[in-house]
């Protein structure tokens, strides 16, 4: 057994919760980039950012299904669920951080790195274990913050292998790891996205299928014998290649080889974007100003959204469609209130949502006390 394997159910639960943190961590970046685009412009980029954001929500929900399937606890309201930006991902310690920033060429490069395909190396190369420098805030599936994966795909592959092994071990003892309440499983009836059906995870087959869906939507079709493909087995184009279309200025169509799209051309107007403060903080806006209040209001709404999702993932599935999805539509207005306005003393940069959820809760807690 490889030393990097996820050996216990508790560790698997930690990994799955990290998966939720990870899937969610990309949302603030994608949403900010999406709403920084001036209305009526850059339609291609808007569409791509929108669908990727919606699918990240799908992936987070799949991770919740996986975690619920093995009887774990989903709690998005716990401190640290929303990282402090900039942040590293479990796989990004060496080369990049995720920022909350407008849609710019450098943001696009970051998005490509987030979704980059599985590094096709050996198992030993794929998982690295090292200590994270103290000054760096990093997502890590381990409490000690030491295990990292070179790509998100690697991370999910490790989870998949763990599911297979832990279930085999349990079966050998006449039991199963799938002890969760099936009524907690979110299905397509409660959330939908561009591609991929949400199905209940109740056994090993459905767990593996769910994990493969996340990997393929992120990075493309993975096969032992073939390099990753642009389209997954359901004919859906992976996130990495969706973004790569923007970099290469052309859409992929069926049959295209990675790096060589042959579809219609895409033009990006980088000037038709509200340039926002990078990784904004509440402290960047004058206290008592309308911007400060708007930023605080957004964070409050976002905290409520995470609380709603937590309820939805814990048995109140109907809240997904009734409350959580409408909340996502509201974010557009709440974020636009910030993004459409220049922030004072920020060199002409516009405001943006800060996503400081823990800090906001602290402010509200203090206010209450």
């Amino acid at each position, binding site marked *: 057994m490889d030393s990097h394997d996820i050996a216990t159910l508790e560790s698997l639960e930690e990994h799955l919760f990290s998966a939720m943190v990870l899937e969610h961590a990309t949302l603030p970046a994608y949403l900010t980039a999406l709403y920084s685009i001036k209305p*009526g412009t850059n*339609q*291609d980029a808007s*569409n791509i950012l*929108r*669908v990727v954001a*919606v*699918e990240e929500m799908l992936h987070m929900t799949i991770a919740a299904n996986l975690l619920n399937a093995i009887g774990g606890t989903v709690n998005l309201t716990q401190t640290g669920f929303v990282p402090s930006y900039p942040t590293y991902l479990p796989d990004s310690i060496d080369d990049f951080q995720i920022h909350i920033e407008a849609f710019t060429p450098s943001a696009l490069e970051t998005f490509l790195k987030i979704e980059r395909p599985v590094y096709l190396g050996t198992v030993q190369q794929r998982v690295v274990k090292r200590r994270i420098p103290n000054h760096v805030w990093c997502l890590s599936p381990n409490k000690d913050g030491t295990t990292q994966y070179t790509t998100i795909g690697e991370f999910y592959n490790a989870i998949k292998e763990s599911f297979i092994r832990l279930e085999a071990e349990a079966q050998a003892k006449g039991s199963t790891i799938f002890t969760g309440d099936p009524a907690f499983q979110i299905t*397509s*009836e409660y959330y*939908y*996205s*561009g*591609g991929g059906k949400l199905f209940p995870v109740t056994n090993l087959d459905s767990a593996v299928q769910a994990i493969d869906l996340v990997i393929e939507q992120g990075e493309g079709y993975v096969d032992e014998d073939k390099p990753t493909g642009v*389209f997954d087995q359901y*004919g*859906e*184009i992976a996130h990495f290649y969706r973004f790569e279309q923007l970099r290469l200025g052309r*859409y*992929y*169509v*069926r049959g295209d080889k990675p790096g060589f799209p042959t*579809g*219609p051309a895409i033009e990006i107007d980088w000037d038709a974007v509200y340039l926002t403060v990078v990784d904004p903080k509440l402290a960047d806006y004058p206290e008592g100003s309308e911007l400060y209040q708007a930023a605080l209001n957004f964070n409050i709404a976002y905290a409520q959204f995470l609380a709603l999702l937590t309820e939805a993932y814990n048995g109140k599935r109907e809240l997904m*469609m009734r409350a959580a999805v409408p909340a996502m*539509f509201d974010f557009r207005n709440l974020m636009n209130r910030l993004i459409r306005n220049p922030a004072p003393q920020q060199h002409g940069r516009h405001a943006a949502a800060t996503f400081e959820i823990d800090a906001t809760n602290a402010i509200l807690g203090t206010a209450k006390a």
Partner: protein
Amino acid sequence: MHLRIDPTRLTTPHEAAGDGNYDAVIVGSGVSGAMIAEQLCKEGKRVLMLEAGPITSKSLRGYNDYVTNYFVSPGKDSQAPFPENPNAPMPRTPLLRKLQPGQVDSNTYMVQTGPYVTDTVYSRTLGGTTMHWQAKTPRMVPEDFKTRTLYDQGLDWPISYDDLEPDYQRAEREMGVSGDVTALRYPGGSPYPKDYVYPMKGMPPSYLDQMVNDGIEGTSVELDGQTIPLQVRPFPQARNGIPNEAYDGGKGYTPIGAVNTHQVDFGERCQGNTNCVPICPVQAKYWSGKTLAKVLRMNDEPDKGEIKILPQAVASKVEINPENGHVAGIQVKVYKNPDSPEHETITVRGKIYVITTAAIETARLLLASGLPSTSGLVGRNYIDHAYLFSWGLTPKICGAYRGTDCISGILDLRNGPFRKHQAAFSVDINNNGWSVATSSPYTDVTALVDDGNLFGSQLRRGLVDRVSRQLLFAFMIDVPANESNRVTVDPQYTDALGNMRPNLSFTTPEYSMRGAAYARQFAKTVFSRMGVIDYTQYSPSNFGYVVYEGEGYEIHGGCHLGGTHIMGTNKNNSVVDANQRSWDHANLYLAGGGSMPSIGTANITLTIAALCYRSTRAMLKQLSFETTTGATIHKTTGYHHGFSRHCDT
């Protein structure tokens, strides 16, 4: 879904004119054109499709340009998304004016010869009127098929509800209907087979729907000695909702999202935007491009047929072989640029011809080609719903402008013995405030500023108070067929390409006005039960103003065009047979609402779609008859032989 119209799918005028091997030439890319093409290609047939308008909406970008056109347009009429195109013009409402007796208004594409003026429209662009339809898909009720026999009104169909029922199901699948069958089972409603469910679950009722239901549930109205209990029922609609896992014997259904030249994932669910008409911003609403996307995919499958699309190609004349009355070809004017009348004229030929350009254009084309038919009924019996609006302010905020244009209505007055005396109607509860009647909220701003002298925060509060309490009932009233309501052509009125424009002459019959008068009383009754303050005002200067029994009403068009080439039992009482095949021209089909001898109180698209399946079966039979009998096409003349009789009836 991946709709890819690349150069290999488009054809050129030269290629189309030189190709004598099309099984079918289809004129129009709307619901009938797309569905018939789909059924033919599925069976390996080769289809040429002519579209008079541009095919902008083939890509998400083009479609979204339409959405943007609508958003930035100060007028929000049904054609707001589409740029003016003098080569394939369409009726537009903002320029309409009231006619004095004897007057003719030729200011808009459709010449209004009176006495009444209609604001009915249809769209000439890829997707046809499914681009702007509201996507409500009620079935007709069985009685609608025999109104002459039962009520001594209008005309009977040559087929019954039961004949059409299986095709209703096919159409509901193809269009992706969301609906709750249990809420639609009521006395007088359309009977559904036991255990039938729609592909997707019903749309959730809006807050306003619930408020209206709270106000009327448990109450009833008396009509012609019959007590009709009232309740709000949801309409079935061709908009993506939550798939019903019980559909298709437990196989479920996968919603079809936006079509595009490259992959997008968009439109799998309705988002509740309140502008289904004139354009769904996310393509959650069915439009015929979704069906065309399926047809185009078939081009890649070896055992399937092929479709070629010729855009910006206006069918201008149906050419007839005088020997046998068969259609010999269709003369087409193909233009490169909507801004220039420059065009080339070609003739395209196929084994069969299918004209699917909606009741007004189809009649126009036939009449312009000099084909009034044996019955002389081409263009006659024009039918459209008469719309009457009633509007008011609810006592509490009712959530106007939330949810799709319309989710629910009051359907129990669609049918009953009272139809002997007055027209039945269906009531829409509109979620888009008073917009269809008053152009709210724009007129609310004017009213509050000019009349209320409000500005600043008071104006904002005033608007919120007024707009969020707007309730509007839209009564869709049955209008029976009547030969004097008709489409004609007149050589003095032509478009930029020299094609004759449609002239429309019609009156709303007394039977329907009795229904309208009852509808108005009905609205007042329901408003008072709900505590709604009535704000309804009909202006004598409005183009649709009609006085009936001393009261004035504004009657609007419904864009539910029927009756100009009605189906019937023989060539003397109708233009087409029960399969929409022309009695006079054996290789010609006229598909669409024009074939419908009555439209009852159902929005017509679902029934049009259902008829396509029926017609396509007849076409396939006809095409296979031609093959088995060894009949050949005389390519040199383009005339076809071998279709000397109806082999399908």
